[in-house]
């Protein structure tokens, strides 16, 4: 099943006029946010976006904008408190690791 987080909060933006229809954003998105319609990419499940940044990073013509970040409360909290380097692989279970990425 596919989870969706809060409604209408993500920073994802697609400028279709720059899209060349290569489809790489569909390929890299772990949340199936995009669909190709009439040769161009379009955002069809915006609330599923987790702001990982993969689509924007891999879009050669630069048609996608997203502010990438880790949706981890612990990391946000440590950041607010000014404590650095305490995240990922240390105290938190860190996203997806258990789903056997490689």
């Amino acid at each position, binding site marked *: 099943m596919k989870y969706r987080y809060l409604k209408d909060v993500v920073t994802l933006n697609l400028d279709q006029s720059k899209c060349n229809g290569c489809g790489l954003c569909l390929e890299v998105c772990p949340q199936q946010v995009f669909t190709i319609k009439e040769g161009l990419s379009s955002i069809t499940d915006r609330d599923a976006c987790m702001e990982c940044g993969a689509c924007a990073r891999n879009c050669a013509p630069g048609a996608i904008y997203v502010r990438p970040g880790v*949706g981890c409360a612990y990391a946000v909290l440590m950041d607010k408190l000014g404590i650095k*380097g305490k995240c990922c692989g240390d105290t938190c279970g860190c996203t997806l690791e258990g789903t056997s990425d490689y």
Partner: protein
Amino acid sequence: MNDGRDLPMYESKAVSCCSSSPEQEEEISYVNCEGFLAGTIETAIDQVARVKAELTASDKIGSFKARWGVGRMSYAVAPGLYAVGNPTPESPVLVSANYKLSFDSLRKELGGLDLWILVINTKGINVWCAAGKGTFGTAEILRMVAETKLPALVSHRKLILPQLGAPGVAAHRVKAESGFRVIYGPVRAGDLPAFLKNDCKAEPEMRRTTFTFLNRLVLTPVEIVGLLKPLAGLTLAIFLLSSTALLVGGDQYRLLAVIAQTAQILVPFILAALTGAVLAPALLPYIPGRALAWKGWVLGMVLAVILLVGAYSNTSWLLKSAYLLALPAIASFLSLNFTGSTTYTSLSGVVKEMGVALPVMIISASLGAVALIVSFFI
């Protein structure tokens, strides 16, 4: 997080059998590789170490320790090129992180295949987290391709990357600067053999992250370990309060009575912690609402109400209010923390929900603490 100082302890000193970049090796040393290597193979450019495509007992013990947070940061493999089976210049090249668990989950799926693994230096962090930080990234891939003389070793110009590495890698830049075309492989290592057989085409379900009941539970040991300290602190605080109350009241000090009272008061807090850290993640899709803090709060409230009409129905009204205020706050905080282990929460969402939830939690928990303290003396 971008130098070796953040990685203080490694299981063993750098060992010569795993080749790596010399400038990195002064600061970082790696897991002893003898356990997972099976000799070397001769190639056009150099000898390449061959890895076993199955896990041994020491791999499994290491994984278990890493899951429970024992020496977790020290679980790195030396970057470099490795062989699986008997690869030729035509064999595919897989790129992986040098976190031992990532490396293990990759190689254990590769039995019977002949290919190359290019392990890049992600400072011992898994693919997904490293991609987010950019250490699993374009620059590091380009550096390792050059360093291992990959262009001279293989006849094709293709790199297969884990899809979850994509946030850190610009495929078009790798292509432009090295000539290698990046192909994003499936999310799970287990789908790799099928992906390779299928001419490097991923079925739609190979591209999806799954987040099953088991995944949600597997991620909790580290959180449980993280809970022990605050719970120990709370136990001590309740114990001291109980003792003080007894002495102030002029009664004779009876240790057993104090321990019994401490335990009785403590149990709901432990249940609340488990509710937030284990139950809320496990029941995630079935709790109404989208915000994780809310889901935890709902379960915490249900727990508090059950306790207050049940086993704790004849406690003082002050203790009851302490539970009503504190238990949902605790469960809420811990399930908010679970955002770090989910596969779908966004930074914008977390920031938004924290803005609302944190002040509520802090106020509610503080009032609960006051009520708890007062309840000892009235």
